[in-house]
């Protein structure tokens, strides 16, 4: 039965995180943007206590997916887990997307472990996010200097040293979100994509868990960025970095590697979309406030040809956000229902990344000099929004995923 009734659990989480965003995030937003590469310790410490008190609730166990046959029931798994997470991410990003990304949290690396790891791996790698004394971060290392969206071109290698039963990782990773926090500043986890066999192409690809402080893993650079400056974006070099055999995620055999790794995107792309929506919603709300303070009126219901230019833009911005949110919720709801959502996750991500970049741009435009000024957060939201059309697959890559699926074309036919 089709229903858009928001489950009370989702509504409650949404409210809680909206309050948190208002009280604890907005006040640091400008400071964090101005102080790139500095840790906003008040925020991080606050969130760490918050998370350890169990306030992150279902987010602590990450996003769920379809259960394999015979798999143990995850005791943390709640109904609407992905929907709850999407609501929380949206509200935190409404507060500040950079601070949301920088909070001590399992992040995308943890999400990958939660999505494809065994129960034992989840226990071993994820428990620290609720028990450690000091803040811990998780990160995902995929991109390389020569391989961005084309993740099958990854050069980093993982060789099995049969004498010690260890993986030996070599290669360079860039654009690792919270990479420095996870690899150097805490006993975090970095999920690294590497190939067991370069000649095997995608099939050779595997993901491996490297714990913070592991010898052979070095942070070589932290980027200066357009937006989300509160979050560190690191280059990490692996030089004969040795990890135990059971740090490989999924089936260690070569043949099924890439698919498992790509499956984590089905869970994470809707969350990136949710984050974008939070920024878009913030931009929309502020632009509306300024418009109304200036005597503007939004005449919902009027003949569209009688609307003012800014009035019409504000309405279309609102519609764009609504469409994006509904598509994102659809993808999250499917994940909650255990339904394959690869197409819908990419639809949500592609549409939302583009829509929110447009919305935050329009907000700056409508607010004029106020929008351009650093006295307001509008210009920052535009800079923050843009990343959502880039990371976790650019808009173009996600459009390609959608196109291949709806046409039923292979990656060889539609390149």
């Amino acid at each position, binding site marked *: 039965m089709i229903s858009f009734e928001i489950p009370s659990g989702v509504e409650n989480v949404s409210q809680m995180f909206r309050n948190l965003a208002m009280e604890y995030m907005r006040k640091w937003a400008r400071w964090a943007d101005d102080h790139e590469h500095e840790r906003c310790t008040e925020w991080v410490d606050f969130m760490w206590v918050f998370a350890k008190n169990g306030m992150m609730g279902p987010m602590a166990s990450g996003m769920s997916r379809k259960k394999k046959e015979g798999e143990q029931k995850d005791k943390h798994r709640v109904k609407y887990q992905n929907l709850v997470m999407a609501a929380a991410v949206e509200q935190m990003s409404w507060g500040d997307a950079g601070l949301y990304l920088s909070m001590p949290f399992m992040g995308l690396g943890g999400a990958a472990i939660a999505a494809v790891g065994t129960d034992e791996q989840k226990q071993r790698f994820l428990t620290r996010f609720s028990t450690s004394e000091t803040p811990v971060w998780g990160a995902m290392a995929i991109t390389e200097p020569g391989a961005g969206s084309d993740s099958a071109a990854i050069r980093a290698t993982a060789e099995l040293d049969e004498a010690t039963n260890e993986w030996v990782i070599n290669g360079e990773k860039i654009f690792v979100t919270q990479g420095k926090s996870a690899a150097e500043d805490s006993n975090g986890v970095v999920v690294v994509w590497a190939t067991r066999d370069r000649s095997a192409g995608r099939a050779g690809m595997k993901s491996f868990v490297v714990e913070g402080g592991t010898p052979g893993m070095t942070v070589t650079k932290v980027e200066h960025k357009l937006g989300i400056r509160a979050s560190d974006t690191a280059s990490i070099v692996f030089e004969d970095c040795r990890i135990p055999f059971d740090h490989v995620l999924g089936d260690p055999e070569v043949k099924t590697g890439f698919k498992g790794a790509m499956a984590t995107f089905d869970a994470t792309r809707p969350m990136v979309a949710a984050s974008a929506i939070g920024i878009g919603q913030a931009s929309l709300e502020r632009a509306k406030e300024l418009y109304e303070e200036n005597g503007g009126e939004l005449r919902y219901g009027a003949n569209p040809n*009688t609307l003012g230019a800014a009035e019409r833009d504000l309405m279309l911005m609102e519609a764009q956000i609504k469409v994006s949110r509904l598509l994102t919720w659809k993808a999250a709801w499917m994940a909650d229902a255990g339904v394959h959502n690869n197409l819908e996750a990419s*639809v949500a991500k592609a549409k939302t990344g583009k829509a929110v970049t447009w919305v935050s741009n329009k907000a700056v435009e409508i607010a004029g000099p106020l929008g351009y000024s650093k006295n307001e957060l509008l210009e920052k939201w535009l800079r923050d929004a843009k990343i959502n059309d880039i990371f976790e697959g650019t808009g173009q890559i996600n459009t390609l995923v959608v196109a291949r699926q709806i046409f039923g074309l292979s990656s060889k036919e539609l390149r």
Partner: protein
Amino acid sequence: MFNLEPSEEQKMLQDMTRSFASEQMRTVAHECDEACMLASGFLDRAWALGLVSAAVPAEYGGTGFERSAVAGALAAEELSWGDLSLALAMLSPALFTIPVLKWGTPEQKKALLPLACGDSHPHLTAAVMEPFMLFDPAGMRTAAVRANGSYVLNGRKCLVPLGGTAEKFIVYAARDGQKGYENVLGLVVDRAQPGLTIGGRERNMGISALDTVELELEDVTVGGDAVLGGEEGMDFKALVSASRVALCALAVGTARAANEYARQYALERNAFGEPIAHRQAISFMLAEDYMEIEGSRLLTWESAWRIDAGLDAFKEAYLAKLYIDQVVVKVTDDAVQTLGGHGYIREHPVERWLRNGRGFCCFEGLSIV
């Protein structure tokens, strides 16, 4: 709770309307459009589906199923996927029946609802739009002025679906010429009413198979009992929302038809040794359109669900229509573009879908869920 899976009943309705659309609509849509007329017997075949009479309670001769805007939206999408002209034609009695069902006085229900429960298509419709630029349903020029317990109607209406053969109309008019939704009255007017002139068939860019007419009302005088809902009146604002949701669903169906057709064509049409779908210039355009259709459908469903849940849906339905009116034009235009010259000639249906899709930005009150 949040759920995007249609219920078993909703799926049955979807299946029924989908097969009717492919068997009885797609097959005749081109000829009907060319001939500017409906296929013979079409309205009665469509009526046999029971889509409108299903909502009428058994005491008035209907089936008495629970009415739902979501179900209406699901059916409307499938039918306009079949053909927009034919969908608007077959659904036009709902423009009369649903407002009576919702806001009619007991006497009006007793007198008027049985008309929509016969075996053949009833000649009932409604007149909302007016032939003026910047038409706004909350600022109609057609006025109903009260005089000695009667109402005197003056004004012009246009795009009245199946108006040429209608026996009864609900004509919407501003009470004493006042602005605002709260001042809109629905008045039941008979075809034979003195002062009512039913114009010739309108010629439009699209929806060509649908017979639409202009009405001229010159001192048309009706009794107080012709006012829908009597003293209580009606909630015209809610009616406008229910109409916008229906139009959104019809736009989604039109867009989906065009996008599906263009995708299929792109897979079959070869250029430079491979299907044009293998080129991102084509496949990205059609993939983006697909995403917009997906989003538009959710926007439509959400507004429909709000209506069913008894929530205010005015803003949602307005925004949905504002958005989808643009989507349907872009999607149908891209479909023509995909077919190139072949899309421009009338052998392929995409040019018809573009002409039909272009209409949505000026449609108000042409259908209802």
